[in-house]
């Protein structure tokens, strides 16, 4: 049976399918194209934020086919219908992982954000605890417009670890 958590996202040329069950948090999609694939946002995929060509390029790099794409003209009847339905949004952040507490894995990306995976919580600058997440990326360049999360601006402003 179709996994009810599956989602699809569309622009006028292509549709990207996301299958959470296949997602192993390789982080390829949002390391390369956080403008489109941003786990800190809902819906987490914004098909208007890059060219179709670029979205295809990055989608093709997903190592587990958790994201795949099709030309809209090749969609089946069912897939077409699913494109227009709206249902509750899940994203890589809210997927459950193994129950055991493992240390959260924090990776400092070169010239980019702080990527966090695993079990952890986030306290905002007002002391409020935000919902637990499975994955997120914090801005490290000082330039994001959606603080404290990375929105891809580190590339535009040429953030460099050496400086």
């Amino acid at each position, binding site marked *: 049976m179709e996994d009810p958590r599956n989602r699809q996202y569309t622009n006028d040329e292509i549709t990207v399918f996301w299958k959470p069950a296949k997602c192993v948090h390789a982080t390829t999609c949002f390391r390369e194209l956080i403008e489109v694939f941003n786990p800190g946002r809902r819906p987490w995929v914004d098909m208007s934020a890059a060219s179709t060509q670029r979205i295809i390029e990055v989608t093709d790099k997903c190592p587990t086919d958790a994201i795949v794409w099709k030309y809209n003209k090749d969609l089946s009847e069912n897939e077409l219908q699913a494109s227009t339905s709206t249902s509750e949004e899940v994203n890589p952040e809210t997927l459950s992982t193994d129950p055991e*507490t*493992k*240390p*959260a*894995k*924090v*990776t*400092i*990306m*070169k010239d980019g954000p*702080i990527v*966090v995976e*695993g*079990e*952890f*919580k*986030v*306290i*905002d*600058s*007002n002391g409020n605890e935000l919902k637990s997440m499975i994955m997120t990326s*914090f*801005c*490290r*360049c*000082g*330039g*994001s417009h959606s*603080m*404290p999360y990375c929105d891809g601006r580190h590339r535009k402003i040429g*953030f460099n*670890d050496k400086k």
Partner: protein
Amino acid sequence: MKEKSAQFRVIENKSLEVSGSFEIFNAKGELLKSEGPIYLCRCGLSENKPFCDGKHKNSGFTG
């Protein structure tokens, strides 16, 4: 005893405090630290990246 899960506290106009159970790696996959609390730079100006060295002060950094 089970270790406390990791906690990330956003300090206004300053760093990100990391505590609890975590491991920090650089982009090459080398382990940098696993004991907290530690403070990661969010303003982009530290000369000791990825850690905060106080350079956010008087820099006008907000967030």
